[in-house]
């Protein structure tokens, strides 16, 4: 510690490190930062549950007895159960291609994955309306064959797919790139098939990263509002997802019911944040455990 040595050379006895601030400044900064986070994060979070429980626990439970609320929950679960596995398969496939091989145009491909994050959710919905809506490119053909995509489940799933395309891929790519390809190459040279290599070698390595990607993808899939709002048509009990149902209830001045449904989505968000902390903790301990091995 050069600074400590310098201090001792000056003959000072106090043990305060010079690379930090005066305690008063420190606590002032902490108070300011926490104040900001309280204002923008903590109060809104608490408000959701406070508003949902305004009429007590019975009022809260009654909100879920409603047939339309249950239909919205079912639709959200259904759409997510279709969109999340597809995007997980895509995420694994593209992460394998990008992290295990060198090829021309790789950087462009990685940039394309991020497009849905840069695009407004409203536009994500709009592009599917232009394709499959009544006035869209395929609209006349679809209505002739009596296939409904917009204002029906397929449109909701498509909009959800678009918005959540990057999540699993973005978690896996940097992680698998940092892992390299030696272990897989060893497995293949020892005679394992590609599938065996993936299941026995790659998957155990990436499982936490993959799990977090899936949880993140699922949270966004269940919570997506803008894109789904454009393609859903807001038909109560039929094409209303949970976030859309929250909007309808809120606009009908049924605040308690709106916040009750919102509280379920908030719990999902809290689970997602907890999952992130756990996964990060896992990696820190894995790295710490592997560290002594690497130094040999």
């Amino acid at each position, binding site marked *: *510690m*050069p*600074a400590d040595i*310098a201090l001792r050379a000056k003959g000072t006895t106090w043990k305060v490190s*010079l*690379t930090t601030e005066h305690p008063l400044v420190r606590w002032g*900064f*902490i108070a300011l*930062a*926490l104040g*900001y*986070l309280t204002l*923008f*994060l*903590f*109060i*809104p979070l608490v*408000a*959701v549950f406070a508003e949902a429980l305004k009429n007590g626990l019975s009022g809260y439970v009654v909100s879920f007895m409603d047939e339309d609320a249950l239909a919205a929950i079912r639709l959200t679960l259904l759409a997510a159960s279709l969109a999340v596995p597809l995007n997980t*398969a*895509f995420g694994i*496939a*593209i992460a*394998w*291609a990008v992290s*295990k*091989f060198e*090829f*021309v145009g790789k950087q462009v491909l990685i*940039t394309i994955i991020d*497009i849905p994050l*840069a*695009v*407004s*959710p*409203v536009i994500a919905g*709009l592009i599917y*309306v*232009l*394709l499959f809506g009544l*006035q869209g490119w395929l609209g006349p053909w679809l209505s002739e064959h009596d296939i409904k995509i917009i204002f029906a489940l397929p449109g909701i799933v498509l909009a959800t797919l678009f918005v959540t395309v990057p999540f699993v891929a973005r978690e896996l790519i940097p992680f698998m790139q940092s892992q390299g*390809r030696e272990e897989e*190459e060893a497995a*293949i040279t020892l005679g394992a098939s590609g599938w065996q*290599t993936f299941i026995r070698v790659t998957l155990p390595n990436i499982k936490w990263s993959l799990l977090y990607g899936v949880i993140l993808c699922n*949270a966004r899939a269940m*919570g997506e*509002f*803008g894109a789904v709002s*454009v393609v859903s048509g807001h038909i109560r009990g039929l094409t209303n997802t949970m*976030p*859309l149902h*929250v*909007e309808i209830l809120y606009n009908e001045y049924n605040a308690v019911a709106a*916040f009750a449904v*919102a509280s379920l989505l908030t719990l*999902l968000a809290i689970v997602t*944040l907890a999952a*992130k*902390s756990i996964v990060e903790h896992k990696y820190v301990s894995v790295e710490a455990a592997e560290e002594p091995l690497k130094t040999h």
Partner: protein
Amino acid sequence: MSFALKQPSVLPGFGLTLGFSLFYLSLIVLIPLSGMFIKTSTLTWAQFWETVTQPRAIASYQLTFGASLIGALINGLFGSLVAWVLVRYRFPGRSFVDALVDLPFALPTAVAGIALTAIYSSNGWLGRHLEPLGIKVAFTPLGVLVALTFIGLPFVVRTVQPVLQALDKEAEEAAITLGANRWQTVRAVILPELWPAIFTGMAMAFARAVGEYGSVIFIAGNMPLKSEITPLLIMTKLEQYDYAGATALGVVMLVVSFVLSLLINLLQWWSSDRRETH
């Protein structure tokens, strides 16, 4: 120098995984997006220009970009502070606070929208105290700013945090031993390292805010020319079956988004370049 498009490898699955990825991306992302540009080409240039420069559209750009910019600036300042406090100081509840920072990523936008509206409306927890002071937040452009600040909050924190963590304390200690005081050290040694990350985070927060819809529409009041954001105007045009108008505005937003992504990529390249030269 080899002219092969792919370097040889013993690992299998290249054709399958890349083929599936390209097919999937084309089907879900690229083809639908390009359909939008084709749709705009059904408008003449004059029609397109008239649609995207209507007073109502101009007012919506001013609100959307103005509020997004101010939100990004607020988050640039407080996000850096939060990152500093989380990396440099130890206090009770630090890891809880660290996890909570990502809430705007994880919370559905509609939930954020109704929660912020409930807090800032005239009988809400904060609105109740602000209204007597003459400050109206809910159903005004100020409400738009609050929502856009909320959804942009994690970006600066998450871009600055790793840079601060990786920062060598030796440079700071050297500055101190050379006689610099703490403020001089922060300004001349630490801040120059952080600027690329702060700008990247602000650009990301800005880009996210420009396209935001769900959290804004509840708190904005949505008055045309006053508190109507561009994504909502697109939605309104869609509901009136004005597909061409909605698409024209959509293309404007899309072009802005792409320019912003390019800028963010340049900023990231700048910051990684800086770190490597050290």
